[in-house]
């Protein structure tokens, strides 16, 4: 079978361009994904971490949320998922996702992208909330009170 060199040249050329774009894309945009305590440790080790953006996940501390009445500014506190003693205050200047709920009725994990400031505040540019129970990981059993109702004869 005659090998078509141009075919392979094209293949290699495109592959090279795409690989280059992916490589530079990753190195330009990649950020570390840390917990608050990991972030603090890293900043202690190398303070320049502060310059670079970072993604942080933490558990929302119930009742910690306040918002300014005069500008779009949300402030809340997250704690380290593994170590509740490590806390971090977060500032966010965009609308919060709908599932952001600090009532404490359920555990809310917050994933933030942003920058840790020298004054100890985390300035988030992006906030996502993860609360599995909103989606599928719902408890298998409903509240016990319901169990005794309407069982007899209604099933089947």
């Amino acid at each position, binding site marked *: 079978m005659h090998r078509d060199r141009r075919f392979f040249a094209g293949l290699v050329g495109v592959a090279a361009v795409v690989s280059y*774009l992916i490589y530079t894309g*990753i190195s330009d945009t990649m950020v570390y994904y840390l917990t608050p305590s990991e972030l603090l440790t890293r900043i202690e080790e190398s303070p320049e971490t502060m310059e670079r953006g970072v993604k942080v996940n933490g558990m929302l501390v119930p009742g910690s949320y306040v*918002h300014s009445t005069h*500008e*779009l500014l949300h402030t809340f506190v997250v704690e380290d998922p593994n170590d509740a003693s490590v806390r971090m205050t977060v500032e966010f200047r965009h*609308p919060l996702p*709908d599932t952001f709920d600090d009532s404490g009725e359920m555990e809310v994990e917050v994933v933030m992208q942003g920058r840790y400031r020298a004054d100890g505040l985390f300035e988030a540019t992006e906030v996502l909330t993860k609360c599995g129970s909103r989606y599928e990981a719902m408890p298998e059993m409903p509240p016990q009170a319901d169990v005794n*109702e309407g069982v007899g004869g209604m099933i089947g």
Partner: protein
Amino acid sequence: MIPALGEFALWIALPISIWGCVLAFLGGRWSRGDLVLSAERSTYAITVLFVIAAVGIVTAFMGDQFQYWYVYNYSSINLHPFFKFSGLWAGQRGSLLFWGLNLSAFSSLAVLLNRSRNRELMPYANGVLLAFLAFFISISLFVTPPFEQLGFLPADGRGLNPQLQNYWMTIHPPTMYLGFTSFTVPFAFAMSALMVGRLDSRWIDVTRKWILTSWFFLTLAVIFGMRWAYEELGWGGYWFWDPVENASLLPWLVATAFLHSVMIQKSRGMLKVWNMGLVVLTFLMTIFATFLTRSGLIESVHSFAQNLTIAWIFLGCMVVTGGFALILIIWRLPLLRSERHFESLLSRESAFLMNNLILLGVTFAVIWGTMFPLLTEGLTGSKIAVGPPFFNQVNIPIGLILLLMMGIGPVIAWRKASPRNLRRNFLFPGAVFLSAAAILFAAGVRHTYALLTFALGAFVLTVIVVEFWKGTRARARIEEEPPLTAFLHLVRRNRGRWGGYIVHVGVVIMFMGFAGSAFDREVRQSMVPGESVSIESPFGHEYTLTYQGLSTSLVPSMRQTIALFSVQKDGVDIGSITTQRQLVLATTPPQPISEVGIRSTLVEDLYVILATVDDAVLLGSNDPQLQRATFQVLVNPLVPWIWYGGLIIATGALIGLWPGAGVPTRSRRMGSGFRAGAAVGAGTSGRESEASTPDSTTSAPTTVG
């Protein structure tokens, strides 16, 4: 009773699918018509049984039968019947059954349409389809049982996530499943062709419409998903490069590549292995997407719960299917030899190949970006994140090359483009490109990528319009028809080709819509009633929004807080806009949800988000200070073009799909035929009945027999 019947139907379907699968392959191997027929009837029977199962689930939802785990978790008594019905695909368990239902329906349709026309390929294809049906039936029975009971009857269900209670979200998933499942049919025929050893373009002829159908549904599904995100997620964007979004894009990208490279095989007998590879890859991508979406392995805003069993099952399915296909392809390599070779880089073949490579490049980049964090964590233990900046940085330049190819591919000559061909086809569009770029630059557009998108868009549109114009003119002259009739006949004569061009127009419009995001404007402000906020759009209009006040009311199942604005555009009243936050009480626990206010014009959207408000204190109070709230006001230029582009794409695909298009009619009426080679790629191949072989005879008369 009916749900129980539904579950029973699934149990019966399992042995039938296995039985049918074995019979189909044996029947094909031994050329036993009775076995083949029995297998075909199994496929029909499974479809009926899946319908019964689906009716069972819908009945359980409609009848509030909360003793079923699935109904309990995805419905509640006061949920609108429309959303109760959509419970069939609202969650993992139902959606996998729904998947099976779609697959069985498509399988039956494929059998019905091909059993007499393609006796040779049908038995094996049916066997492959039945194997996948058995797979999905097993999942619904043993892994994610939709009919699992709680053992007691709760008083009410937990309600459907209010974010999913949206029109677009109701039609987005089924459209996606239609696209995913229908692609199993081309895959089955490809596998069948490999097993039988019939590797001419027969399997492609059989499946061309199927591929286009899947592509049509995938396209719509992706657009519906964007529309949903834009309306419902309330942050002003429509695409976030979230793993779940990426998952839906992957099969689409490969299917798009396949739709193009198939034309090369049809008209030039080249790229046979490549096409085989693409059909397998597209199919694998649908499974990979399912794996990504349902495993929960990759962090995503809206993924299903983590389910490692499902993850392993789909990963296993992918490996087994891929390995099986690979072995078949290697076994049949001698039969997949190219009939011709590439002659020049300046040829339509190269342009199409380039298109393919680029689309696969995007696919790879998207997979890489999506999987990279998982791989890094697995290999080095350090967690990193790759977000939208990565995907934009990589995909925008590739997308621009794709746009360029979209202008070159359709009109460059087959085999080897002569300087005359290049001049003839690209001189004018090239001039349009340069003028568009110059005009935009003069108008103050300094964003390189956006400027290139618009200028290249103008280039592609010019190429297409010229094609239509030349084709219509030639036909009008030769057939002596009035221009409009000539135009309609032209499109009707070769729907695949002209439909494809219309799709390209839609894609260009959509790309321009994406580029509009470079010029987004936004203001954020805290306001009390009576205060105004102004925002200037990039088109120079000034919107002034005056906050009229807030009203909070308790309606059944939710607390609604609505902010009202009157809107002035360039000083003229144009009406009002509302934006609201709702607290849906029907779910447990209550869930807040925003309904943004959107006011669309032809070229831009005014988008208002109610960001913060102390709505709880407001009930029954008229104090304006209490009505203080913060808003984010956005002007999203060209976003409407994304939806218009989507409509145009759908229209083009439908033209290509319309019955009768592309049915090989061998009779070429001599009287109306054009002179071969009269005008290369100038739309003169209206006679060509092969939908996906644009002017193969006219522009390459010496090589096509």
